[in-house]
């Protein structure tokens, strides 16, 4: 075993820190208060290759391993969870799904502009009545599954034998992350034989981006309702094999679970830094409050939780790099990352007292932001079901959510 970062990873980390300090930190507070998506930051991030962080060089990606990528997410989240979540949605949910399941043509078409930041990715899974329960999707695809090509027979017609335009997506997607800024949507819909995944460009006729949710935190992220009204699709839009949509979604969410936990790590680190500095300077009862055992206890416990999380995250990222990792591993890191990020930020806010509650200090923003981590990308309760499934499988108990 070896828990050290490689020389290359250390070098990347220094570069990420430099970038975040120069480009993210100075803008994060204002972007949050103005509820603006971080378009300028994304442009700069694209120049550094971050928007194609894990993509191969042939698609103009930076070809980072997942551990290095998680270091990037962690570093960005120290300054802005909004920026981190925007990036993770783009890279882990959308670009990496195309890399994993796309045809050569689809990769050639979509990945280079995504890596260049010319096209942001959005993930359209959740619906008004389907959140955790993804099998309950109401969005429909009328694109028939192609007949298998028979040897010597005619190849399947590209649009399932229907006249052009006959196949369409219909439905409503809610809380689509990056909705307003996206150029490409990864949409999940019920097909004739199970759930299908589709790549739908933002300018596709019949796709429209609607209401933007006002949110507690992550105020620089755009969460929108997306309407699919007779949105025309053909086989060229389909991602992966017919009927494998839920698998694609699950793999994407597993990867993302690790990245979101890395983001949680970053939030917790930044909160602890701010609180430690405050406690060292704030004098009450004649001494810096860092001398108070209650404050020491809060900080010591937070750091302990942080360090335990750190290695859980790096290990999970390493599992992604190895092509390993079971649902159990991803659920554990997702649930724990969310709990630590919010718990630590909450306690550190307490160290700052009234100052922690004021919007003029970034801790209030981090607190509002961190709360989302136990809901977005599959709530903690769902992760717990998946963890319990693994534990009880050994005792022959089958658990349904």
């Amino acid at each position, binding site marked *: 075993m070896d828990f050290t970062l490689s020389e290359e990873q250390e070098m990347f980390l220094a570069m990420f820190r430099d970038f975040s300090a120069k480009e993210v930190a100075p803008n994060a507070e204002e972007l949050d208060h103005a509820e603006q998506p971080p378009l300028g930051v994304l442009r700069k991030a694209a120049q550094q290759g971050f928007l194609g962080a894990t993509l191969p060089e042939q698609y103009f990606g930076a070809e980072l391993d997942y551990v290095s990528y998680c270091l990037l997410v962690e570093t960005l989240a120290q300054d802005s969870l909004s920026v981190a979540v925007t990036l993770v949605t783009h890279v882990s949910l959308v670009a990496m799904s195309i890399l994993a399941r796309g045809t050569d043509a689809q990769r050639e078409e979509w990945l280079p502009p995504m890596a260049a930041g010319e096209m942001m990715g959005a993930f359209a899974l*959740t619906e008004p*009545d389907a*959140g*955790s*329960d993804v099998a*309950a999707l109401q969005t429909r695809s009328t694109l028939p599954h192609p007949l298998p090509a028979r040897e010597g027979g005619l190849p399947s017609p590209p649009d399932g034998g229907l006249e052009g335009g006959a196949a369409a997506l219909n439905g409503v997607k*809610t*809380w689509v992350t990056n909705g307003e800024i996206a150029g490409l949507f990864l949409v999940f819909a019920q097909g004739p034989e199970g759930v299908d995944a589709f790549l739908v460009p933002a300018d596709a006729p019949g796709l429209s981006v609607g209401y933007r*949710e*006002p*949110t*507690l*935190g992550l105020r620089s992220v755009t969460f929108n309702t997306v309407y699919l009204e007779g949105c025309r699709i053909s086989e060229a839009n389909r991602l992966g094999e017919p009927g494998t949509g839920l698998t694609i979604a699950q793999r994407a969410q597993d990867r993302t679970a690790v990245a979101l936990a890395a983001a949680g790590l970053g939030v917790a680190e930044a909160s602890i830094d701010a609180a430690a500095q405050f406690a060292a300077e704030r*004098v*009450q*009862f*004649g001494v810096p409050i860092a001398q*108070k055992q*209650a*404050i020491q206890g809060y900080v010591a416990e937070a750091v302990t939780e942080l360090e335990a999380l750190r290695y859980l995250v790096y290990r999970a990222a390493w599992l992604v790099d190895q092509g390993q990792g079971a649902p159990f591993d991803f659920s554990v890191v997702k649930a724990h990352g969310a709990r630590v990020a919010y718990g630590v930020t909450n306690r550190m*806010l*307490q160290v700052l*007292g*009234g100052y*922690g*509650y*004021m*919007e*003029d200090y970034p801790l*209030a923003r981090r*607190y*509002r932001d961190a*709360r*989302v981590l*136990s*809901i*977005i990308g599959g*709530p*903690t*309760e769902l992760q*717990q079901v998946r963890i319990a499934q693994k534990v009880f499988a050994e005792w022959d108990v089958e658990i*349904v*959510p």
Partner: protein
Amino acid sequence: MDFAFSTEHRALRRLIREFAENEVEPLAAEIDREGRVPFETLGKLGQIGLLGVCFPQEYGGMGAGEIGYCILMEELGRVCTSTATTVGAHIGIGAMSIYLDGNEEQKRKYLTPLARGEKIGAFVLTEANAGSDAAAIRTRAVREGDSYILDGTKTFNTNGSFADIVTVLAVTDPTLGARGGITAFIVESDMPGFQVGTHENKMGIRGSSTAELIFEEVRVPQENVLGNVGEGFVSFMKTLDLGRLTLGAACLGGAQAALDWSVRWARTRRQFGEELAHKQSVQWMIADMATQVEALRSLVYRVAWMVDTGQPFTQMAAMCKLYGSEVASRAIDVALQIHGGLGLSRDFLIERFFRDARIAEIFEGTNEIQRIVIANNIFRRHGVRIRP
């Protein structure tokens, strides 16, 4: 023993609930969004007599005691934390300090218009370098003839920006510490030199005002000394003890609201083919929440009864504030989790309650200070004196 509310208190709760639902709740989202104090609500509360709910009728009050006041705070807390905060600062610490320590003339002159809602009150203590460590305040009051000249800056003052009558703690003798060196003064906001400084931009309770107050050579007549010279700190502690109890009552209302909304949503939202109410993880969240709400309710009204019957209650009030704020924060956090993404939306009230709840663990004495107060009361009986 008798745990039932009196007929009068039950009638009072009906009156307040109706008012809260008709007048306070409809404005709650708006005042939060716009960051404004609902003066129209304060006016109506004053007209009904609720701004003097706990004070004797001879001073313009309603005479419903501490139990009545807790009912008011609980019902306001159920629908709007900002309004509860503004009302709490006015009655609970502003007017209350004058009720507890004022002489007959001060009560007639200041408490009566406060109780009637004709004037608004505040109590200002915190300074940039003195929060939990209240004895470290630097605002000075220097005797000059038959007046005192006040100089200094107070921060985080609830209602400070618009209050007419402000109780201010200032140092009268720097050679003496908290006991002997600090005096409370009643200051009128139109006294020359009284200025409102910056307004705080807060995460929650945005429909209440928190501002800086600057005292620049404010001349306060000697008859406005509240209580005895040098006893301001003691008088402040007495006032704050009561404030802690009623903050616990407001937290009770918030926690009850979180529970009610969670139950409603668990009956509405279907996932995996059934209502969330059928999911054991959700059932347990609700069961825990309900248990804590009931424990808090018993604590709050028991301590209110102790106040009304003249028993010592300092330690118990600290427990109300500590337990109440933690129960409310936890309850709204769980409610947000049950509501999932909807809980994060600013179109729905859970998000507002979530931002609002957090401050109760900080103001009116941080929860760390409450633990010290409680521990101090316990260990004192064993001859151990605890320093904060």
